[in-house]
């Protein structure tokens, strides 16, 4: 059962554009990308126990990579997209090499410092990143062949933004499947062991740092892929993609959904972005609401939505047995 429902969600998600509302497709696209971003962070925070406060760096690097390749050089999406993951992973390897040497609060601070370096470079390097103005008008991938198909089969006729949504969905589904495999693999199990007790892992002969670095690189690469998609979706890449407040946004999503579970962060992305869309139509004070949600979360539901639901489920299913 647990293996089947993500597939059902995926199939349902493919029918969102069929609802005919551009707004829902836009929102769904946003959610899907952030779900990948938050899930990649969860590999570090939730599974390995490393609190990164600079995860936006890799998201930003990925966004700039895909954006630069597609806009300035005209590289097709199928090459520019994996390049985002590759370059973000490479940077994660260099930064992570230093970060995993530090523990707890110092680890969080060094990740933040590196992210700010990335932000400062994006902000100032006008020739490549467009500096403060960012890089607007990133082109969509080429969907000409789909349009030719649609000319023959009219039921496949959609807008370019909707084709992009399908593409995003497919790519994110593949990424999440890969991440799920990684989490379930012996490597992933070892990460959980390290989170639970790094000293013990060291004693049984595990090279803790190397495993942590591995997790850091994988998380960075997938964040880069999410960033690559987001730049196209957003029709532009801007320095604030790598700013520290972005890193805390994705941390909040992860926490809101529930760090202990694989799909919790994706759920957090869904709930947070949907709430955001609902609330900004009433008031401009979204940060105030978000802050309040966060306080309630921290004090009342530290396990996030997934944690609360699981707790309730366990309590409900235990009751008949004890009676």
């Amino acid at each position: 059962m647990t293996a089947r429902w993500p597939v059902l969600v995926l199939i349902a998600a493919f029918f969102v554009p069929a609802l005919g509302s551009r707004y829902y497709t836009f929102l769904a696209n946003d959610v899907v990308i952030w779900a990948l971003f938050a899930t990649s962070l969860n590999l570090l925070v939730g599974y390995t126990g490393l609190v990164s406060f600079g995860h936006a760096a890799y998201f930003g690097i990925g966004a700039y990579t895909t954006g630069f390749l597609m806009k300035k050089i005209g590289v097709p999406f199928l090459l520019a997209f994996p390049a985002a993951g590759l370059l973000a992973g490479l940077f994660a390897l260099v930064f992570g090499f230093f970060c995993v040497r530090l523990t707890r609060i110092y680890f969080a601070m060094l990740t933040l410092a590196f992210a700010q370096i990335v932000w400062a470079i994006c902000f100032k390097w006008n020739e490549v990143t467009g500096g403060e103005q960012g890089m607007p008008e990133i082109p969509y991938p080429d969907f000409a062949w789909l349009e030719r198909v649609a000319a023959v089969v009219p039921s496949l006729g959609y807008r370019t933004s909707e084709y992009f949504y399908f593409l995003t969905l497919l790519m994110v589904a593949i990424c999440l499947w890969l991440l799920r495999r990684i989490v379930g693999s012996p490597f992933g199990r070892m990460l959980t062991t390290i989170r639970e007790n790094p000293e013990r892992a060291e004693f049984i002969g595990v090279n803790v740092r190397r495993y942590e670095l591995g997790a850091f690189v994988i998380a960075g690469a997938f964040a880069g892929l999410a960033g690559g998609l987001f730049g196209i979706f957003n029709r532009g890449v801007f320095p604030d993609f790598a700013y520290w407040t972005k890193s805390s946004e994705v941390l909040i999503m992860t926490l809101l959904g529930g760090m202990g579970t694989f799909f919790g962060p994706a759920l957090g992305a869904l709930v947070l972005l949907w709430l955001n869309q609902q609330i900004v139509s009433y008031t401009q004070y979204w940060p105030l609401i978000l802050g309040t949600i966060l306080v309630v979360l921290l004090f009342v539901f530290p396990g996030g939505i997934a944690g609360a639901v699981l707790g309730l489920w366990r309590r409900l299913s235990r009751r008949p047995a004890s009676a």
Partner: protein
Amino acid sequence: MPDLSFAFAQSLSGLTAAMFLFLIASGLSLIFGVLRVLNFAHGTFYMLGAYSAYQIVQWLGTGPITFWIAALGAATGVALLGGIVERFLFQRLYGKEELYQLLFTYALVLILSDVAKIIWGTQQKSVSRPAGLTGAVSVFGATIPDYNLFIILLGPAIALGFWYVLQRMRVGRFIRAAALDRETLGALGVNVRALYTGVFMLASFLGGLGGALISPMRAIVPGMDTEVIVEAFVVVVIGGLGSFWGTFLGALIYGQVLSFGILFFPRFSIFSIFALMAAVLIIRPWGLLGRPLK
């Protein structure tokens, strides 16, 4: 190569920036040293200090001492707010995961900065320089506004006063003891809870004072909080989290690197600051003058 008096003026402007950063960062460092929490909301307290100073000046009108009343009043108000937050919310998170404490302070950033927007709007506000400090003096061929000179003198004065409290007074001994071992201190009969509230209030006071004092020099705008917290953060990391003189040194380094960086590599001065911070973290994670955490 620019001439000497220009370089001197540049270093003085760096020094002014450093003294503000020291005021703000010392509070951040104090909270980290004693409470072991990185307080993202500290920048927001600084912003609230600036807005409150503006508000009090608006109420009192212009007079010879209104600015000073406003600065002290604003800092006291921010300290009270800090005390309330610590006593009723923050105290419940001690002993929980660091991530929760970090995110709680971030929630405060979100909430308080929006409250400031609701009260004061998004238009930028400004406060005029206090009477008696509106002129400028010439030192070694460099022209320095009186107010900047006052700040350059005030910084070390506050540092010395702070040091005196920490090293020579009873309460300072308690604060240092709490930073080392809170359980033992509690067992010796010191009210650690009240001490924490006091430390949080003192730190908030310094942050608020920094904001109030910077209001005659910089426009008061939303977003000044997230900007300054990163700067203060760099300062304490370079100097050493929880280290008092480290913070002072970090602020001096930051001010000089920034003001000369702008001169020689205008585009990469921010970059050089963060690179310096990363280098310090890699070589000495506990900072130049800090001590490693157990």
